[in-house]
């Protein structure tokens, strides 16, 4: 009787503590984190399949038997299928981010997501062809076809990342405008001396200038982004990033100004 009660007591304690942790863990789950976890899992599967292919191909080159070739072909097909899955999951994740993040103009969003959809369709068709291919020659043809997609896929990824970065700066700018508006009201009516009010007002003027300069940065970055749509060879993510960097520095400084004003 006593032993049963003790077991019940410990089971209760364990369940209670685990239950509490589980309820907190549930709160952090979003569609993006779920998709990100799926993508990371597929990337791990791809790495394992690639390692397996390297081993099988090595055996085939050493033994040069039909059985070894069969093993290597199976391993190649497996790694090619997983590779398609990884890229499809990656574009699903990018699409989800683009559709979720605020600060992206609808026309640009629509243009980019339709481009992503075309890429995903190409990948799905490729995957379907690989799935039914069983011989080395045709599998190598599909492998060659996939390598020709590389430039297009990377260009789409670069454009998506560029737009997401511009959207990030735009969202921060919107928050800065909101913060400045609240600080304007606060400084204007706060029970403080005129000297202090003057100091704070100068800080607010600096913030106003920051807003204008960040708007210019975003405009420049969007111009570069639009140019990149006309060129596959130069998607321009690194250039967009370079254009945005001064805007990010100005935003960081504006946060510092805001902190000083509310002190």
């Amino acid at each position, binding site marked *: 009787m006593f032993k049963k009660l003790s077991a019940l*007591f410990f089971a209760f304690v364990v369940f209670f503590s685990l239950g509490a942790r589980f309820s907190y863990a549930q709160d952090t789950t979003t569609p993006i984190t779920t998709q990100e976890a799926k993508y990371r899992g597929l990337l791990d599967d791809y790495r394992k399949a690639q390692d397996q292919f390297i081993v099988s191909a090595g055996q085939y080159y050493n033994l040069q038997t039909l059985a070894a070739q069969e093993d290597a072909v199976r391993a190649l097909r497996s790694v090619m299928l997983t590779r398609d899955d990884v890229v499809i999951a990656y574009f699903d994740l990018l699409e989800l981010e683009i559709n979720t993040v605020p600060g992206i103009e609808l026309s640009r969003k629509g243009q980019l997501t339709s481009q992503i959809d075309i890429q995903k369709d190409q990948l799905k068709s490729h995957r379907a062809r690989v799935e039914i291919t069983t011989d080395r020659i045709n599998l190598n043809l599909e492998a060659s076809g996939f390598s020709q997609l590389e430039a297009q896929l990377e260009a789409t990824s670069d454009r998506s990342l560029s737009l997401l970065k511009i959207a990030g700066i735009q969202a921060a700018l919107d928050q800065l405008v909101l*913060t400045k508006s*609240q600080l304007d009201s606060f400084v204007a009516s706060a029970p403080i001396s005129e000297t202090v009010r003057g100091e704070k007002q100068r800080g607010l003027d600096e913030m106003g200038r920051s807003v204008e300069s960040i708007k210019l940065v975003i405009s420049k970055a969007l111009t570069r982004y639009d140019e990149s749509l006309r060129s596959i060879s130069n998607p321009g993510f690194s250039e967009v990033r370079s254009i945005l960097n001064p805007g990010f520095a100005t935003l960081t400084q504006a946060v510092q100004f805001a902190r000083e004003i509310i002190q």
Partner: protein
Amino acid sequence: MNNTNNPDWFSEESLMGTEMSEAQEQEEFAVKPETTAIPKKSNSKKLLLVAALVVTVLLIITSVLIQPKKKTVSVGATPTPEVSNIPAPEGITKTVDELEKDVKASDPDANNIPFPPIDFTLHLASPSPTPGF
């Protein structure tokens, strides 16, 4: 006093009576260890059960106290529009915190979803001294 003066007190019957009661007492002493051992055992079990229950209750109270308090929107904390349109300093601090969070998330050099590190050149070449993978 009366008992000491009573002649029957030291009679044979009364002495026999005392002898009988002593024998009964001896019997009682002989039985007692068996009868007292059972309550002692049940008492220790009861004590352990009570201790376990007390610990459980203490654990529940402690865990309830340790759990983070849910954030509640304080309706009364913000000033009413009739008094003033100026946001409270707490409200402004919250807005600045949000701004800081947004700015940190907008770092152009941080890329948490780079293009997947996959090999685009994988294929199975014909056997040769230099493998094609």
